[in-house]
């Protein structure tokens, strides 16, 4: 049986004709549910207004006056937007655009996505001869679907040589990619996460003069490459307009990220394994830094205290055990429990933490403004109706002193077990 809906014009006609003797029967059949009207025992026509209509694809109730209730099976069939996006496959690309994203924490950042948007702009300019966007990714990544970002080809290098801080080994891999595919452009993020450094090393090795701090790229028939770019220079105080070179290091928001299409992200491989070069720089790993010494505005993990905290000793101890930077709401600062430079919010510091734990903070609007860019917010509070609970990704209602104590115990236990196992 095919899934095509078959129409029966006669049944539809009966369904429209309320005087037809088989009207109720046919409605039963077609309406796939309760009949909306029937003859009552006293000879009156009874109507059930709730049985009229159906739930449309967007979850809104619709009434179809034509009598046939199409799409009556409800709103659950709507496909997620990701699947409705058309898949773009470029089998024989005219040229390649290589992008080396930062992949901080194994995920594509907003900056990386903007860069892929720019790469698509360069690759899709001529519909007759489309280019392919090649992404070169180092190390393991956590992205479920990299094709969403606009990647046609994916070169994933996950060998131990390129792990950690290994700019020379990574440069070797990029040079090999250059020799294999010779992309028309190399795009890298001009960031402190490694992209800026790698891009400069690549440009110097290839003998190209790159454009750094690019924030705008426009088509220009007069330029040699067909594109002009505007780049920031002199510590952000100059705009330099120049033809787009082969290698460009772009700033965040240089282009709109890809949102309307999916791309194939076909896996590529280098023709030969990476040569094991002796690195002149030896990476001894990250150093544990004192979390209280990290500036509040750039701390990754903040434990913040408000009016609800009564046991301040316990709070400081918890911050120490968790390795979190301490923050505070304005009330805690005004009452003298915390220093002024620890205040989070519109009148204090705007924080960018990945995880923000608010202990006993009800969430004044000034405070919520200050934590706008935090990824995950955890609230520990007595009042289930406060604004911080609405903002939080995880809220625990209860006494903050006891919960922090339990948390400290759990963390200490886990560390103990790890030490025993080791």
């Amino acid at each position, binding site marked *: 049986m095919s899934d095509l809906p078959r129409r029966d014009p006669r049944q539809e006609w009966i369904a429209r004709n309320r005087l037809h003797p088989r009207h109720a029967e046919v409605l039963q059949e077609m309406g796939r549910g309760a009949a909306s009207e029937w003859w009552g025992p006293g000879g009156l026509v009874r109507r059930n207004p709730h049985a009229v209509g159906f739930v449309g694809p967007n979850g809104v109730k619709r009434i179809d006056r034509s009598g046939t209730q199409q799409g009556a099976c409800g709103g659950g069939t709507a496909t997620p937007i990701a699947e409705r996006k058309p898949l773009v496959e470029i089998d024989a690309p005219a040229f390649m655009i290589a992008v080396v994203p930062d992949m901080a924490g194994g995920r594509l950042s907003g900056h990386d996505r903007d860069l892929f948007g720019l790469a698509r702009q360069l690759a899709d300019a001529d519909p007759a001869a489309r280019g392919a966007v090649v992404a070169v990714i180092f190390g393991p990544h956590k992205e479920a679907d990299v094709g969403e970002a606009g990647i046609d080809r994916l070169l994933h290098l996950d060998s131990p040589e390129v792990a950690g*801080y290994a700019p*020379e080994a990574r440069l070797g891999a990029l040079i090999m990619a250059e020799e294999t595919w010779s992309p028309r452009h190399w795009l890298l993020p001009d960031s402190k*996460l490694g992209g800026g450094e790698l891009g400069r090393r690549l440009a110097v090795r290839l003998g190209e003069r790159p454009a*750094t701090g690019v924030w705008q790229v426009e088509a220009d028939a007069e330029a040699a490459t067909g594109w002009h770019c505007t780049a920031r220079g002199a510590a952000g105080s100059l705009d330099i307009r120049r033809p787009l070179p082969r290698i460009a290091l772009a700033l965040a928001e240089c282009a709109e990220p890809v949102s309307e299409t999916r791309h194939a992200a076909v896996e590529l491989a280098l023709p030969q394994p990476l040569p094991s070069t002796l690195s002149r720089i030896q990476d001894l790993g990250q150093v544990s830094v004192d979390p209280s010494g990290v500036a509040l505005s750039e701390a990754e993990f903040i434990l913040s205290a408000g009016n609800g905290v009564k046991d301040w000793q316990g709070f400081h101890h918890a911050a120490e055990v968790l390795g979190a930077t301490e923050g505070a709401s304005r009330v805690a600062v005004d009452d003298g429990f915390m220093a002024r430079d620890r205040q989070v919010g519109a009148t204090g510091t705007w924080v960018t933490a990945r995880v923000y734990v608010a202990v006993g903070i009800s969430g004044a609007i000034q405070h919520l403004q200050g934590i706008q860019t935090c990824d995950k917010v*955890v609230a520990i509070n007595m009042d289930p109706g406060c604004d911080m609970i609405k903002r939080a990704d995880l809220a625990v209602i209860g*006494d903050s002193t006891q*919960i922090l104590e339990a948390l400290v115990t759990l963390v200490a236990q886990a560390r103990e077990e790890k030490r025993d196992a080791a």
Partner: protein
Amino acid sequence: MQPESAMTPGLEVTVLVSVGRHPLTGRARRADQDARGVELARSLADAQVRLLHAGMRDESSEAALRGYLGMGFTELSLLEQSEGADVLPALAEALDAASPHLVITGERAERGEGSGLLPYLLAERLGWPLVSGLAAVESVEDGVATLLQALPRGQRRRLKVRLPVIVTVDDAAPAPRQSAYGPARRGAFEATAGPVSADDEWASWHVQPARPRPKRLKIVKAASARDRFKAAAAKAEGGSGQVLTDVTPTQGAEAILTLLREEDVLR
């Protein structure tokens, strides 16, 4: 040049300094990152620090360069260049001749193109390793330097590299000391005429004062009118979080711990 154990007492350090630009007034000053580099060099024990500048010599740049002399130096080597010249050949030649053990520079200049390429070009030309974004030099022993690199979010990474090396200094390095007026006045410039090569490409570009970048608009891409309305009417803060009520403190703590582990913030 082979590093020897005997060289450690007399560690030769060259700091490349440039003329900076005050972000508000636009006046010439000592460049912030270069001054941090000088401070870093000053903090090294038993180091012979030499300042090197390549550029034009006029009244304002001389006043700015005296700022470095005021950090405790008697002289500054100056490679005279014309305006808008490419300083790379002159610097590479000077460094090749002096062959210091450690070269310290800022990450990028505050004037001109400011692309931050110079340290990379020098490293490639001299064949030395380069370490970028330094916060501190921990120790230099037996021709091997242990360096502390600044990472985003206040993190640090420890690296070991064999001398000679070129390092660039991050904004996280210790703040420079104040420039003392007397030594700054007394300091001398030791000017040498180096090779001058014009930068024709830079001259051909169109340069103007930076204009503010346009703010990105929030574009709602929705298939239906209902989705568009929902996106427009939605509150900024979505209330999709998980709320745990009536739980024991231990259960609550476990839930929090799971989230902290997922986000990988516990060390």
